[in-house]
């Protein structure tokens, strides 16, 4: 990680390249980043308010904020897992600190998230949900989300090198995890006996730190924030530890 800091110009270039590839490929690539979550939100609104009859004020804002967070989290994890495999040839020929690849992936995920916030703010205005001062807390929320995601990416990316089917497996687990996290549904619809699952889900905690300032117009209470910081720091620490331990073995397996 310290090495990755020394290579910060490289990280910056890798981020720029990743964004360029994403946005150059299709003319509407940039628009798509903003549009996809909006369409997803419309689908969720249809499903939850028309079919499940969920009554949540301003559900569209709640769902869009959740979707943006989840897209960032799951896409960054899958991309981190592919980042080492994608640079296999390079890792066998150059002594580059390997962590720069998952790091660049998560940073470009953050940039995408920032772009995707634009339509969210648009939605806030359109629905009259108002732009509250609590939105100024978002940089902290995004930093925590990024730290947590980077930890998960560092933890999983060596595994994806050792076993090629891990990426698919994690894809399935991420879907499961999404339904165990109140991303698109309100916590209240979870039956009481199942509520502990959602309650002890560490991702819920990180998600709420992101969504509360947007949806509830409030900065998360200090107690909750402390828990989230601890979770993010723990995930990051664990990721760094696992990555460092497996880092030397990576070139042998790709």
């Amino acid at each position, binding site marked *: 990680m310290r090495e990755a800091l020394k290579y910060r110009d490289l990280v910056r270039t890798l981020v720029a390249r990743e964004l360029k590839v994403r946005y150059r490929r299709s003319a509407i690539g940039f628009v798509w980043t903003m549009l996809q979550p909006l369409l997803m939100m419309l689908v969720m609104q249809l499903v939850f308010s028309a079919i499940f009859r969920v009554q949540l004020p301003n559900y569209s804002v709640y769902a869009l904020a959740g979707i943006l967070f989840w897209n960032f989290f799951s896409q960054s994890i899958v991309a981190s897992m592919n980042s080492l495999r994608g640079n296999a040839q390079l890792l066998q*020929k150059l*002594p*580059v600190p390997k962590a720069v690849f998952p790091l660049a992936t998560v940073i470009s995920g953050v940039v995408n998230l920032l772009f995707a916030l634009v339509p969210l703010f648009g939605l806030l205005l359109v629905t009259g949900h108002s732009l509250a001062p609590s939105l100024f807390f978002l940089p902290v929320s995004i930093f925590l989300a990024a730290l947590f995601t980077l930890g998960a990416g560092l933890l999983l990316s060596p595994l994806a090198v050792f076993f090629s*089917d891990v990426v698919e497996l994690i894809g399935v687990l991420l879907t499961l995890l999404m339904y165990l996290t109140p991303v698109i549904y309100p916590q209240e619809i979870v039956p009481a006996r199942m509520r502990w699952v959602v309650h002890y889900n560490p991702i819920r905690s990180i998600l709420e730190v992101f969504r509360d300032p947007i949806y509830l117009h409030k900065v998360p209470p200090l107690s909750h924030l402390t828990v989230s910081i601890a979770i993010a720091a723990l995930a990051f620490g664990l990721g760094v530890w696992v990555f460092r331990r497996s880092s030397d073995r990576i070139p*042998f397996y790709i």
Partner: protein
Amino acid sequence: MTDTELRIRLDGVSLCYRLAKQRIPSLKEYAIHWMRGALSYEKLWAVRDLSLTVRRGETLGIVGRNGAGKSTLLKVISRVLKPTTGKAEIHGRLSPILELGTGFDMELTGLENVYLNALLLGRSRREIDARVGDIVEFSGLGDFIRAPIRNYSSGMQARLGFSVATAWVPEILILDEVLAVGDASFITKCTDRIREFHDAGTTVLMVSHSAAAVRQNCSRCVWLDAGRLRADGATEEVLERYAHAGTEPDQRAVGHLHLG
């Protein structure tokens, strides 16, 4: 000789590739094999108990047959692979060229690749800004520098790769069979640059199948055979012993691969 002169010290270095007897590319198969207790590996020792000391300003050629462990040894010295056992001490900044064009992005232009490649070698953007003119000039690519690299021939890629990797004088320069491509005039340019580096105190390690290239660039030479150090000494002497061994019948493994 003082310790500050020391560049590379390998102490009993061995490197083992663990090849699974069954190919186990997935977690599922791994789990199945593990439950059956049928996980067995074939160990391939590419480098065995190798000790070697190289000092500042030495030019070391490495010869040996295909599969003798030359490239693996260079990877250990380049800090790409960590030795399975033994100790590898490397002092000073490396410029490893294990393969020309490593890290090139085919979609980017030559110029963009100069930046990407130098960044991968650990240079900062500011350092590159200061040298980019020299790099482009040395490569001799002219206006092609603005074209995407996928349109380059392998010789042109080699020119660019060498130009970037040698744009700064490193403490240790590592070349794996990289002078094999490129035209005669460029090879002369490369050879001149290697000599300049040598004069500036750079330690040069090169693997080559061309005895002429080793003779021209290296004063010392080691001969690797099946991962072990078979000879270490003055270039002429080692090359002669190697040449004699080459005519012996132990070419079995690669004999019919000598097509060109």
